[in-house]
C-alpha cells in the first residue's frame, strides 16, 4: 500500500465486495474483516470489533461499518468514498433489475434462486459471528455475556438497544 491511492483502494475494494454481498451487510462482515485486517492491515482486530460495535449502536443501516473503515484508511474523504462504493453500485443494479422485472413473470427461476441463496447467506452470517466472537470474546465473562445476549435475543422480543447498553454498562464496570 505504498504507491496505491488509498481512496481508490477503498472504492475498488468495497465496490467489488458489494456486488458479491448476497444476504446483506451482516453476511459481508467476514469479507470486510479479511480485507481490512488480514489483507490490507487498515485496522487491527480490536479496531474492527470496535467499529462493528459502533455501527450496531448507531442509527441507520448496519452496512455503515464501511464508513468507519473508510475513515480509518483515509479520513473523511475515505469515509464518504467507502460508503458510496458499498451502496451506490448495487442500488443502481437494483434499479435496473426492478425496471426489467416490473411486470410479474411466470418464471420460477427468481424464486428458485432466492431459495438456493438462503442457506448460503445464513452460513455467511454464522461465519461473521464466529470471526467477531474470536476478536471480542477473550475472557470467560465476555463469552458468557455473548451467550446470554444470544439466548435472550433468541427467545424474547426485547429491543436490541437495551442489550447493547447492558453490554456497555458491564464493560464500563470492568466486568467483561
Amino acid at each position, binding site marked *: 500500500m505504498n504507491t496505491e491511492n488509498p481512496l481508490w483502494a477503498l472504492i475498488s475494494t468495497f465496490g467489488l465486495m458489494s456486488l458479491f454481498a448476497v444476504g446483506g451487510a451482516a453476511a459481508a462482515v467476514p469479507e470486510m474483516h479479511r480485507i481490512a485486517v488480514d489483507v490490507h492491515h487498515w485496522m487491527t482486530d480490536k479496531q474492527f*470489533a470496535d467499529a462493528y460495535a459502533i455501527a450496531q449502536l448507531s442509527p441507520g443501516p448496519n452496512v455503515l461499518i464501511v464508513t468507519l473503515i473508510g475513515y480509518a484508511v483515509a479520513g473523511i474523504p475515505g469515509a464518504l468514498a467507502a460508503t458510496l462504493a458499498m451502496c451506490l453500485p448495487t442500488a443502481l443494479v437494483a434499479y435496473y433489475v426492478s425496471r426489467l422485472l416490473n411486470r410479474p413473470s411466470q418464471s420460477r427461476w427468481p424464486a428458485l434462486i432466492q431459495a438456493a441463496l438462503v442457506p448460503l447467506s445464513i452460513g455467511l452470517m454464522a461465519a461473521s459471528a464466529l470471526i467477531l466472537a474470536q476478536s471480542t470474546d477473550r475472557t470467560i465473562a465476555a463469552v458468557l455475556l455473548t451467550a446470554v445476549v444470544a439466548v435472550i435475543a433468541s427467545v424474547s422480543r426485547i429491543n436490541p438497544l437495551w442489550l*447493547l447498553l447492558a453490554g456497555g454498562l458491564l464493560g464500563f464496570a470492568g466486568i467483561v
Partner: protein
Amino acid sequence: MSPDSAPAAQEPDIPAVHVQPPGLLALFLAFARMSLAGFGGVLVFARRAIVEQHRWMTADEFNETFALCHFLPGPNIVNLSMVFGARLRGIAGGIAAFAGLLLPPTLIMTVLAVIYARFGNVEVLSRILAGISCAAVGLLIAVVFRMMTPLLKRMEPIALLLMLGVFLAIGVARLPLQAVLLVAIPVSIGATFLLRRKVAA
C-alpha cells in the same frame, strides 16, 4: 401461499388506493426519518412508514419490492430505497430516497469515527466498546439462529450441508468470499433445481 382474495389480513383498515406520489423532498425526509429511527436495522421502520403511515404502497407491493431487493446483492435496505423511490418518482425519486437513507447516518458515523480516532485508546471508552461488542455478537448469533430455524425444521440435508460448508470455508478456513460463492452458488442452485424437480415428479 396466501389466498388472492385476502390482501394484508392484519391491516383491514388500509385501502389499496394510492395517494398522490410524494415529492422528492418528502421522500428524502421520510427515508431520513426511518433511517435515524432504525437502531439495529431499518426494515421494521421502513415498512411501518411506507405501508402504514404514508400508504405509498400496499403490504403486498412492499413485500414484492423487498423480496426483489433481498435477492439482489448489496445492502437490502439501501437497494429498497432506490427501487422504491424510483417506482414513485423515477430515477430522481430513487436518488432522493437513497440520499435520505444514507446521508444523515453517514454524517453521524463520520463524527463517531473522528471521536473514536481521538479517544479510542482511552481506557474507559475502550472497555465500554468491548462490552458492547460482546453483546453485538450475541445479537448476531440470535439473528442467525432465528433465520436458521425454518431450515432446521424442514431438515433439508443439502441446504444444511451448504450452510455448514460456507460457514467453515469463510469462518474457519478464512477463504475469500468471491471464490467461495463462485463455487457455492452454482452448486446450491443446481441442488435446489434437482430437488424441486424430484418433488414435482
